């Protein structure tokens, strides 16, 4: 049995009180709860405070470039679909610099899990607006307030009929653990957008602010009803729904489409010299 402790103890370079600590804890619990050992999982992250998270976890890790965790994760998965791949990064990383990859990942339906630490701000670079920063929110870089409509990651994911779309909140940890587990269980691209207070730079969307608003979807909610999910995904105001917003069980995981992968990870495959010879013959 794997336990949370198996993922080690590190000293995160986060601010005291940061929501990232809760996510780290929940990730460990989710993995332990699913009995996944450190070497069975690969974390891929970008750059930002969120993207440091896997450094504080015993695991395989590729901590790449800002905005590029999804393509790396996709490549990793397509090289070895047997390895569990979790992409973990911030809102800026995934929805800002990496926006095009987010769209592509939704379309590809790669069987990986995406955990977005959504603090609605660029934390590591000291507090500029991220795509999810609210309208009129003032920052040093946007002293007159943000004048772009916030990006609604869940709405986009649902509009694209993504496989699994959920929202978690660092203040609702039990739910968060199970959302991460459900996401990992789901065969296809699974997004968990996690509301995470940034105590240093987001003084609007504080822990209290989220606590007042976040409410678990109740059992009557049917996440397979697309139209319903579409509206739900846009709810952002006095009440913010958490839980599984949408599931599309019909979607086929992407790796299944590659004949080359039917015989397992690429690293174990031999060079096909007969095929090379055959191709050469076709040029004769």
């Amino acid at each position, binding site marked *: 049995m794997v336990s949370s402790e198996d993922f080690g103890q590190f000293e995160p*370079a986060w601010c005291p009180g940061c929501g990232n600590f809760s996510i780290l804890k929940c990730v460990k619990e989710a993995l332990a709860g699913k009995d996944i050992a*450190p*070497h*069975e999982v*690969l974390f*891929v992250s970008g*750059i930002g405070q969120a993207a*440091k998270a896997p*450094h504080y976890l*015993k*695991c*395989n*890790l*590729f*901590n*790449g*470039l800002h905005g*590029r965790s*999804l*393509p*790396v*994760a*996709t*490549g*990793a*998965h*397509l*090289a*070895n679909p*047997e*390895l569990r791949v979790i992409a973990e990064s911030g809102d800026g990383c995934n929805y800002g610099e990496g926006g*095009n*990859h987010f*769209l*592509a990942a939704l379309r590809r339906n790669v069987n990986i899990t995406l955990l977005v630490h959504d603090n609605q701000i660029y934390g590591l670079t000291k507090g500029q607006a991220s795509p999810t920063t609210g309208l009129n929110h003032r920052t040093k870089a946007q002293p007159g307030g943000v004048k772009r409509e916030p990006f609604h990651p869940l709405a986009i994911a649902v509009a694209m009929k993504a496989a699994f779309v959920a929202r978690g909140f660092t203040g609702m940890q039990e739910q968060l653990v199970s959302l991460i587990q459900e996401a990992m269980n789901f065969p296809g691209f699974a997004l968990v957008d996690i509301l995470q207070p940034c105590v240093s730079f987001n003084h609007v969307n504080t822990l209290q602010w989220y606590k007042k608003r976040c409410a678990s979807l109740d059992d009557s909610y049917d996440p397979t009803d697309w139209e319903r999910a579409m509206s739900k995904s846009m709810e952002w105001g006095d009440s913010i729904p958490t839980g599984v917003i949408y599931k599309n069980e019909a979607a086929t995981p992407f790796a299944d489409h*590659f*004949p*080359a*992968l039917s*015989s397992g*990870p*690429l*690293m*174990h*495959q031999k*060079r*096909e*010299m007969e*095929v*090379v*010879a*055959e*191709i*050469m013959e*076709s*040029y*004769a």
Partner: protein
Amino acid sequence: MGSDKPQNRLQVRIGGEAGQGLETVGQMLAKALTRSGYGVLTTQSAMSRIRGGHNYFSVYFGTEQPLAPGGQVDLLAAFTQETVEIHQDRVGERGLVLLGEDMDTQGMERSLQIPFSQLVEEKIVYNVLALGVLADLLKLDTEVIDSVVRDTLGSRHEELLENNLQALQKGREWLQSQSPDFQSLGTSEQKDRLTVSGSQAVALGALAAGVNFCSFYPMSPATSIAINLVGHAESAGVVVEQAEDEIAAVNMAIGATFCGAKSLVPTSGGGFALMGEGVSLAGMTETPLLIVLAQRPGPATGLPTRTEQGDLELALHSGHGEFPRAIIAPGNHEECFSLSGQALRLAERYQSPVILLVDQYLVDSIRSVPRFDIEALQDPVQPGSTEQGQEGYERFALTEDGISPRLIPGAGQDLVVADSDEHTPEGHITEDRRVRTQMVEKRLKKMEGLRSEVIAPSYQGPDEPDLLLVSWGSSQGVVQETAGMLHSESRQVATLHFSQVWPLVPEQFLECLQRAGSVISVESNATGQFAGLLRRETGFEISQQVLRYDGHPLTTDFILKKLEDSGLA
């Protein structure tokens, strides 16, 4: 009029609009000529459009292998009037122009008007009909040309094949009824050869070296390499994925390689410009990365379907920060095959980015080459054993040669940690200045190994020539041919060719430069990028340069003319 050319060569040019099937005819002709024992080299001039405009496809062949595009045209098959107008002057005295019955011969005596519409019904087979005419003019064996058409079209519809074979036959028969005055070449007996394009050779070389992953975003002239791989994806066990953009392409390949794939990313200048951060990432995380950079003229969109060697400096310096890399620039089709494998091996061995620098001319041209010796290929480099299972695995362990043991995540119990930030030997973020210094030095130390494996430039000619022509990459052949033409009792001419352009090891060639009377470099760009690099690395200044930058491949004519103009030849 092109310059004189060897007696034992002929050039066929097929010109018309995009969409008239010129390329197909040219390719089949090239294959038929190769099978008939000739040495063949084709070039294509295509506009950046799908239909219309003016394109042409040239098949240059001889009893010996031509190494460079031809000048004078011997047979011009004109599918449009514009073709006649543009190329008429290039047709030699003994040459012949084939054109449609409904076209204007513009007073040319040596022309043949083919009554296409009387011979066949469907326009779509006009091109193959013309192929029949050409084949017969060139005295190709019926069986050979038939077999080529069969092999090329056989995989499509039965009916289509039949129609084409009939058109071929009609063309041949019609020609026989004409008894034109045209002198073909004597027979040639070269055996056991392939007819391949540069991109086919690159793709095959990559497969033979173990490539099993390719992520790409379409861009001329690199797309064909991916298309070649995807065509064999199932049988050869390759994952080929079209990415959402070039940034995704390079990052996917890095992710795949990190997890044990052998990856290749084909692109062209604009796409490569977008990959710079990814190249730097590969440098920092020490992930093998093979990029095939197929150059076309820039800046920006430039001339999308034409050729240039204008991205050498970008290849040398792309990506921020400092890290080792190698740049290999095959000089011909055999090297496209063998060096794409070498490029992959270097990437894997030195865990670094390696760029295979080709260009539109090289990847699109077709050539007859001896069968590749695939038996003799080395085994793919394998990452370290993956079963250590010990706590202390360090992905970036400090070693003598800078190369750390590379394990694959998921292959065993060891945890593999890689980071784009500066990192400790274990792969975790650090800002420690001592570790930083060690890591910079460790990474750069790999340059030593790369240097020790450099493909030495090839020198041909007398030891102390009056004139030394320096070339790199795809201009190998044209420079060799030019040197051959310039060389005489009274004027000793040699060539120095680089098929690897980074790193450079001056001991391998500096003396050659110093011993020559005068040194002239030949490049397909406007600023003499390689000459600049040579000077940076050796201090040796090549002040005389032949530079071409109009989008067309270097020819012997072009080089000779430039040399004459500047009083050098």
